[in-house]
């Protein structure tokens, strides 16, 4: 045979590696403590090769998966291979080391076969708290990264001998809910251990050289398919923009701009004309912008292409230092991970509207729609209840949008009302569709929802982090915009006010927080 490895062996190895990544997610989701891991599934798993190239991923969160294709590469720039040993598990969260924001902590385990480094198991998990100025670690008023929580450079928390207790205690001493966090850390370690066991077994069956050859072949095939997919888009230069509601609490809208050039089998995405870095926590890292492009091109041009490092070779992506998407390491970024990233996708969709409208979905709730309640849980522990809120999906050329669903770069689940009430001093006194919130059009956008929280204890902390409050989800091809987000605080004493998209405040028992999520944009002029 011409190739070193036959197509059947390639498929056998692909199955085994994907199963290993899925097992990693199973282990962490089932055994973790943070509600946003165990109920929402705000976690992702990946396996990379010795150089940090992605070779397998779970069915997880697209933004994480994109970012993780940079994490190990950047990690290796800081920690040379010679320092890695079997049994190590390194933790890190620095945004500039192939990261996104401080709460997403990555556990990295090097995997050795016959004394040679061959792969890494990487478990990314969103911790319920990473320290900083406010419970839940979304400090709305942050103007620099150090206010946002503990910055963890690559730290070896576990070795073959077990846990490095002093380092772990140092870390836990700086975050809220240390017991819950320790449970999450153990779950992440167990998750990377599962990857190691599977890789060892696979290497024992096939030998690493065969696996390496299979990986190269998969990369080449994905690259070929991506080239074909890009060639299926009409050549041209397309420009698009979308806006963040504000550049921080009470600020002005800020633009994300993209210039896309499709030329044969190549595509370039230039975000240079994006606005300058903002003062508040909506900046993000170039890795997040690249993850957004990876997602968008795959969804629009080649959804079935196996994602690996080969898949993205035909892409060129540029961000401008000093802009929102490349702000420098001192800037706060916590909200940018799930807000600004989604705006990158929106800008790409708007740019491509003249080229391939039939492949696009009108604007949806491209925001986490986040509320974080902090305080004592019913079991007495300090805890944060971190809830993302989905809205209506945008409509498409062939169908209406569906109600209440997570779109594009995120795919977290909600926390059931019955679980919320059993664990926190909060009662949900209403949860229903926000009827009529979807935008009109030949096809209608999906409806958003209303969820009302009644606070049962004094002194609870609340953080808001959401977008699409000012700039609503757009329609396409003449469809109308969906209704924007609206969060209202009804105070116990009778007063009420609309909350901003980035606020930290204290609540009293009897206060009611009503979340109304956006409807999706319509598609085509209404008939």
């Amino acid at each position, binding site marked *: *045979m011409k190739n070193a490895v036959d*197509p059947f062996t390639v498929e056998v190895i692909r199955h*085994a590696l994907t199963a290993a990544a899925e097992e990693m997610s199973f282990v962490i989701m089932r055994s973790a403590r943070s509600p946003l891991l165990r109920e929402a599934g705000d976690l992702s798993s990946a396996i990379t090769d010795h150089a940090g190239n992605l070779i397998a991923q779970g069915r997880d969160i697209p933004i994480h998966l994109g970012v993780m294709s940079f994490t190990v590469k950047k990690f290796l720039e800081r920690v040379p291979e010679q320092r890695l040993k079997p049994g190590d598990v390194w933790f890190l969260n620095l945004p500039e080391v192939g990261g996104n924001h401080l709460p997403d902590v990555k556990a990295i385990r090097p995997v050795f076969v016959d004394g040679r480094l061959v792969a890494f198991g990487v478990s990314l998990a969103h911790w319920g708290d990473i320290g900083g100025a406010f419970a839940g670690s979304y400090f709305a008023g942050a103007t620099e990264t150090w206010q946002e929580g503990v910055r963890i450079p690559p730290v070896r928390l576990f070795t073959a001998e077990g846990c490095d207790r002093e380092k772990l205690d140092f870390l836990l001493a700086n975050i809220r809910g240390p017991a819950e966090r320790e449970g999450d850390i153990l779950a992440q370690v167990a998750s990377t251990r599962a990857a190691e066991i599977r890789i060892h077994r696979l290497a024992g069956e096939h030998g690493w050289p065969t696996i390496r050859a299979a990986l190269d072949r998969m990369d080449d095939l994905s690259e070929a398919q991506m080239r074909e997919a890009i060639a299926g888009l009409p050549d041209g230069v397309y420009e698009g923009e979308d806006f963040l509601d504000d550049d921080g609490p009470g600020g002005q809208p800020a633009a994300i701009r993209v210039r896309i050039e499709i030329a044969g089998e190549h595509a370039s995405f230039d975000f240079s004309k994006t606005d300058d870095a903002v003062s508040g926590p909506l900046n993000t890292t170039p890795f997040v912008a690249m993850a957004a492009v990876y997602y968008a091109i795959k969804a629009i041009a080649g959804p079935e292409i196996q994602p690996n490092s080969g898949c993205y070779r035909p892409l060129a992506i540029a961000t401008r230092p000093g802009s929102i998407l490349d702000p420098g390491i001192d800037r706060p970024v916590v909200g940018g991970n799930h807000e600004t990233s989604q705006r990158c996708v929106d800008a790409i969709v708007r740019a491509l509207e003249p080229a391939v409208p039939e492949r696009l979905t009108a604007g949806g709730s491209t925001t986490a729609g986040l509320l974080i309640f902090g305080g004592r849980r019913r079991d007495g522990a300090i805890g944060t209840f971190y809830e993302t809120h989905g809205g209506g999906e945008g409509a498409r050329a062939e*169908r209406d949008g*569906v109600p*209440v669903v997570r779109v594009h770069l995120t795919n977290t*689940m909600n926390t059931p009302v019955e679980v919320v009430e059993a664990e926190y001093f909060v*009662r949900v006194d209403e949860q229903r*569709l926000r009827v009529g919130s979807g935008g009109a059009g030949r096809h209608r956008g999906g409806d958003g929802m209303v969820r009302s929280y009644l606070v049962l204890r004094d002194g609870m902390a609340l953080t808001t982090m959401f977008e699409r409050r000012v700039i609503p989800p757009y329609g396409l091809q003449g469809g109308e915009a969906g209704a924007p987000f609206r969060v209202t605080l009804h105070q116990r004493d009778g007063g009420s006010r609309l909350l901003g998209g980035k606020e930290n405040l204290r609540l009293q028992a009897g206060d009611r927080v009503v979340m109304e999520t956006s409807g999706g944009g319509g598609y085509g002029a209404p008939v």
Partner: protein
Amino acid sequence: MDRWQVGIDIGGTFTDVVALLPPSGETRAAKVPTRRGDPVASILEALAAVGLAAAQVADLVHGTTLVTNAIVEDRVEPVALIATAGFEDVLDIGRAARLHLYRLDLPPKLAAQVPPQRRIGVVERLDHSGAVVTPLDAASLAAAVARLKTLGVESVAVSLLHAYANSDHERRIGAAVKEAVPFVSLSHEVNPETREFERTASTVLNASVMPIAARYLTLLGRSVPGRTRLHVMHSSGGMASPEAAADRPLVMALSGPAAGVTAAAHVARELGLARVLSFDMGGTTTDVCLIAGGKAEISTEARLAGRPVRQPMVAVESIGAGGGSLVKLGTGGLTIGPDSAGAEPGPAAYGRGGTLPTVTDANAVLGYLNLERKLGGAISLDVAAAKASLQPLAQRLGLGVIELALGVQRVANATMVRALSRVTVERGVDGRQCSLLAFGGMGPMHAVGLAREFGMSEIVVPRFSSGFSALGCIVADMSYTQQQTVRMLSAAWDAERFQSLHDGMLDALIAPFRRQGHQAETVTVERTALVRYVGQSYAVEVPFALPLDIGALGAAFRTRHHAVYGYATDEPWEMQSLRLSARIARTAHLKPIETQQTTQPITQPKPNSLSRCWFDRTGPRDTPRFDRDTLAAGARIAGPAIIEDSWSTVVVPPGTAATVDHFGHLFLREASPK
């Protein structure tokens, strides 16, 4: 007159029957085509095929795809939903996650099963402990009943927030709506577990199949004589009375696969196999299940046609790969399924106009299928068509058709290994230590290859392997299983509350036995605690006995947690849910097959014919074909060989040997250790 125990499994294409006469252990088995849309006729024809009249049958147990198909084909009945006021849209909201990460064209979630005009809110509210926050409002209930009458539905689901912790409001609503509609499903009866979307969706699904199940069970009851006791197979691997099944038809959602798994568990007990993976490969899907200590693992998280079916059921992992699965060139390599050639036209080898290559076509090209025989007496094989279907792919890959077919085998096995590894990993079991029990139309053909790929060394192809689900119907115990959220903390254990929850659950569970005149003492109860660390969401299963020893339960939990997740700590834990299973055992003894005298040398069985089969790239091997029915106990056949009956083919590759035990089971093992 001695009367027969009969098991009948009505599948999509064929109906299987196995009959047993208890005193002698005599068995009969047959297969007849399923009468689509007329299950009663299928049952009567199956009885006739084994030469029995209905009056000769003592117990008739049947597995049915009635409920499964109604759900999968979306032929369920319209229902109304009564929910806590303010929460009527729970089905639209769901869990908000989307089904496909990158496919924007596909709808990201299913439409709610109950449209807005049939959702009715009732003013009431409980908290998570079951305490009443807002009493059930009489006026709002009266209005709900009045509105229900205007909707023209036969069936209603009632699902209130936190009803798993306090059933009072649901009971009162249930009593009030009985005057308006004949069928009522209450969420605390269908699925008394927390998480409102999954509970409501399951309750609505139950309500929507209730009228269908009731009509069918009534018709069936009328068609068999009064002396024949009727039972149906339910999803957790036991049989239920028609009355119990009519109240909660959702228990039949996995009736078919559960019957096969039940038979596998029976064989595992009979052979004393500690850990077994059941492997049921059919035309479009493959079902696998872990059986530990002779018991099938149970799960409560399953989806059918994308809808949650939260019921205790055998933990079957289903994967979209079967004989009819299409072979394609995908990313990286060759892929199998989940698209399938379906029943029509089916694989190219079936000669009914199929042109796309399938797993069965690869098997035909390799010579495993018998060209002399008609499959099921009806389908004759067309190897040329099979070859032609594989040719274009082989050309693209620069391979010969045989090489491609051998590759298809490997990839099909790797695809099915995913299912095997999932069911073992999720239970903390090393799958390589399990025995593989292969049945179904295709299972015995792929068993050795699959076992080699997964690293298993023992394979059993049981007697009745091609009508195995019908056997499961005969050997199933009469049983009921329920799981309920209890939320009991180890740090503040309330033994009295636990006892009262336990007793209440047990009482409801054995009610159907009482109604049939059984004494409570004859019922065996199995108890499983679902335990987690405080702050986790998912629990691990820990069996326990009464009186409950909290210390021992905690220790057993930590051991299980370590086995499944690789670590454990000494933190406090919580009993999230309690699962009880009540059963009355049936004893089914099958007569052994004819055994050769041990004093005489075992005669080598004679092959029927010889064919050329490919097992690797070195060239075809002359392979003898044996008729399975003629093999006596003690017979040993060295590979390469094919052992077949009218319905299935056991492939015994070179280096493997098959032996027959006195129950008629085939054991396949490596001929000599590598």
